[in-house]
């Protein structure tokens, strides 16, 4: 796929680390930035971790939640239906989530190209940590062999993106057993699992920003 950048000048992008936040709180922040971006063509990137939550994308099959929702609720885990592509996914501390609020006019105005670039951001980042990853034909996301390490699901309004990617850094993999991730019979993995070390979230965040900068030709404002 052609990933050439139509606009050669670097795009200014403000990066904000939200820390560990509830899903809904981060969603409100995204929506506010989205409204701003649709009128001022501003570019923002939010990084965060979420308290445990199961989210269902549009057209998701609720059968892909494998445990009784009451049981999930008793564990303090919310189940939310949200406006992104993709099926069911699970977020929890230890998973780095990135929400690029990008006017896609600046990045080719092509949904597939945008998702391709998000995958590239993760592949480059994982390479830095010595993890060889790739795309898997027909299955959006990033994979280490046949194990999934990162998921992608986006929304686009007036050609501005929201939602984004989730990368398992030190996520407890057994927690994924409550869902069928993305509706697939797939094994999940994490950076800790692949490197057999404790990867520092702050190091991953720094590298993720650098990877976004390189892939999307951004000038980062912190």
């Amino acid at each position, binding site marked *: 796929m052609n990933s050439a950048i139509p606009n050669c000048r670097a795009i200014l992008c403000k990066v904000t680390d939200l820390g560990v936040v509830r899903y809904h709180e981060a969603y409100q922040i995204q929506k506010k930035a989205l409204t701003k971006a649709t009128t001022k063509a501003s570019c923002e990137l939010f990084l965060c971790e979420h308290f445990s939550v199961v989210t269902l*994308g*549009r057209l998701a099959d609720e059968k892909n939640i494998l445990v009784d929702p009451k049981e999930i609720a008793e564990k303090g885990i919310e189940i939310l239906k949200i406006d992104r*592509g993709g099926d069911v996914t699970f977020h929890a501390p230890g998973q780095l989530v990135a929400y690029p609020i990008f006017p896609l006019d600046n990045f080719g105005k092509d*949904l597939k*190209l945008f998702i391709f670039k998000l995958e590239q951001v993760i592949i480059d980042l994982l390479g830095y940590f010595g993890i060889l990853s790739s795309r898997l034909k027909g299955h959006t996301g990033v994979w280490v062999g046949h194990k999934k390490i990162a998921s992608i699901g986006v*929304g*686009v309004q*007036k050609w501005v993106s929201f939602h984004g990617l989730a990368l398992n850094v030190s996520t407890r993999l057994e927690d994924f057993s409550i869902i069928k991730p993305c509706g697939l019979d797939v094994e999940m993995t994490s950076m800790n699992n692949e490197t057999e070390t404790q990867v520092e979230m702050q190091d991953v965040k720094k590298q993720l920003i650098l990877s976004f900068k390189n892939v999307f030709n951004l000038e980062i404002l912190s």
Partner: protein
Amino acid sequence: MIKINVPFLGEGIEDVTVSTWYFKEGDSVSSGQDVVEVVADKAIFNIESEKMGILKKIVVPEGKAAKIGETLAVIE
């Protein structure tokens, strides 16, 4: 009369699924207002009305697929 068609969304995207109609037939819509949401691969995409008017007819209902360029609705 204007038609709301599925726009070009990217190389290799040939069809979409209509996920949400934000209005029903007979409702008035404003220029630039999102009228319908479609799903393409792992993305949802909101399609807006280019002009104000009345949503006369929904051609493709929720849950159904449509090709790029296909008419989803008519606004008068």
